[in-house]
């Protein structure tokens, strides 16, 4: 809360460190086995999702349980843009953000009439409604259970206008001015949008608008008696946060042009809540950390099996190995949820401020302990940037 004392130089540093850490992910994630494009893309996309969610939950304290609806709408809008207009990623992203913003305006307008648990339940209800509609009434738009896919027969009006040669055989792939949006180029496209998203969120945190949102979280009653109409502030925060989710959804479609209704299920809404709380709600980099951690667990931990463990613990004598491997095996592979659940419980109980609070405590411990403040500060910054 001392943000007014800090010179903006620190923020410039923060954004630079953040950008460097994100863009260099293929390098420093290599030793952790996280360097493959599919996972890197997920880090960036869910980072955007969580950063946007944090603008609502972290700043205003309103806990939405329906953000997956915006993720899903973003995906559908992007795939429709590929089908009808062009395989270029930019219109897809723009439509994803716009449609998610539109839906957020409607859901927000209705849900924000209530606060606390009632608000959470209303958002959950709307998201489940969207999910069920996508399977039933809206099948012409969503293609029901099969999911919305590209087809060779799609019109793609803009692409047809500008291409002179005959259409190539097979399905076209999403692209950005000729660069195919899968693999590493796809990751870098997402990463650039993530950095822009982080910068916008930083500016909101540091703006009078952000201060007003923090005021609403702290004491909504007093806010009204300062002459402020809290409703439009809340609605704006809700729409911005929905647009981030729409951006994340459209990027999911850009990297893999397929949209299914399961993306809107309540578990997806719950996941972003976990990410934000795990990393530290209300902090700038916390949600990114949480998103990274959960996606890492989901993809890396879940792929460990007994043979990997045998290898990891091969330095142990055989008799011990026979006990250790099955026990640890409970926590990896298909049991990765168990590890995540325990980790979540530990963090909520001992570190209510999330991972960011943990780093801050370590940092404070070292700075108050000795004269190594300079080097520690750089390290803490790097950690915060991850």
């Amino acid at each position: 809360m001392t943000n007014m004392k800090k010179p903006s130089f620190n923020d410039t540093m923060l954004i630079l460190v953040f950008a460097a850490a994100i863009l260099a992910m293929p390098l420093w994630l290599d030793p952790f086995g996280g360097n493959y494009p599919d996972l890197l893309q997920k880090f960036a996309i869910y980072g955007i999702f969580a950063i946007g969610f944090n603008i609502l939950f972290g700043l205003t304290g309103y806990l939405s349980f329906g953000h997956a609806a915006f993720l899903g709408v973003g995906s559908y809008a992007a795939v429709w843009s590929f089908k009808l207009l062009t395989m270029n990623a930019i219109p897809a992203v723009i439509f994803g953000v716009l449609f998610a913003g539109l839906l957020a305006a409607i859901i927000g307008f209705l849900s924000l009439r209530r606060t606390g648990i009632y608000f959470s339940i209303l958002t959950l209800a709307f998201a489940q409604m969207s999910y069920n509609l996508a399977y039933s009434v809206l099948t012409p738009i969503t293609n029901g259970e099969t999911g919305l896919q590209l087809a060779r027969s799609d019109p793609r009006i803009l692409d047809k206008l500008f291409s002179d040669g005959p259409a190539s055989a097979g399905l076209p792939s999403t692209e950005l001015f000729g660069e195919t949006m899968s693999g590493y180029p796809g990751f870098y496209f997402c990463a650039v949008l993530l950095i822009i998203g982080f910068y916008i969120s930083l500016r909101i945190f540091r703006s009078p608008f952000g201060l007003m949102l923090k005021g609403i979280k702290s004491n909504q009653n007093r806010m009204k008696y300062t002459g402020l109409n809290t409703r439009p502030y809340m609605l704006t925060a809700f729409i911005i946060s929905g647009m981030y989710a729409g951006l994340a959804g459209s990027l999911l479609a850009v990297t893999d042009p397929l949209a299914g209704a399961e993306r809107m299920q309540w578990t997806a809404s719950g996941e972003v809540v976990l990410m934000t709380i795990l990393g530290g709600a209300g902090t700038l980099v916390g949600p990114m950390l949480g998103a990274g951690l959960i996606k890492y667990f989901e993809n890396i931990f879940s792929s460990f099996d007994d043979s990997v463990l045998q290898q990891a613990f091969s330095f142990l004598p055989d008799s011990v190995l026979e006990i250790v491997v099955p026990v640890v095996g409970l926590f990896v592979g298909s049991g990765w949820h168990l590890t995540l659940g325990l980790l979540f419980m530990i963090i909520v109980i001992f570190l209510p401020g999330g991972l960011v609070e943990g780093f801050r405590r370590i940092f404070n411990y070292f700075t108050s302990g000795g004269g190594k403040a300079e080097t520690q500060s750089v390290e803490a910054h790097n950690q915060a940037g991850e």
Partner: protein
Amino acid sequence: MGDLVLHLDNINKSFGGLSALSDVNLHVEEGTTHAIIGPNGAGKSTLLNVCIGRLKPDTGKVTFAGEVLTGREPHEITQLGVARVFQTPEIFQEMTLLENVMIPAFSHRDGAFRLNANKLLSKQGEIRDEAEHILEDVGLKDMMLTEAGSLSRGDKRRLELGMCLILRPRLLLLDEPTAGMARHDTNQTIELLKKIKSRGMTKVIIEHDMHVVFSLADKVSVLARGQIIAGGDPQSVREDPKVKEAYLGGAH
């Protein structure tokens, strides 16, 4: 003395079967300090809640400077120049004193809503100066970067008063501004309220402490069992036999 600026006409309010206010008429002169006293449960806080839009009266209306306040949202009433200090301080506990005062300063400058998301707080020098100035007035400038939740009760009240003053209200409603304070703190608060008296705003103050009432008030109204039973300048109210009876034979 100036013109009448605040009018409460035929206010009735009951909760369930219990009548909290019955046929209250009150008129406050511009620029004066008007105290409302009365035993516990007389309906004093209900009266303020009706003024500020927190409660809707069953009948009657509240008019301030020609504008009807009844039926308006709290933020609209505040925008018309009515500010309120609550009995339990309503402040932003987790924020610094400076932020506590800057928030109403933004509300005052920008009105009910303005999307200020593209500006940096650190570039809002004039708001910060204004906030520091107010904190100096209420004697809290030395602590402006501490968290508001760590303040003493008396300091929280002063902070809340500062948050109201930065709105430059024309009418300030104070609900027991010295309740639960030690004598020393009470005297400090009286001095502070006297100081802001010179700014020409109208004040309506609810108070238990007769020492506070007689140091500050120009006019006193006595509320008992939901009705105004006496009114006038402090001296004559003090002598009024009906008031003595209400205090001695009433709720006490």
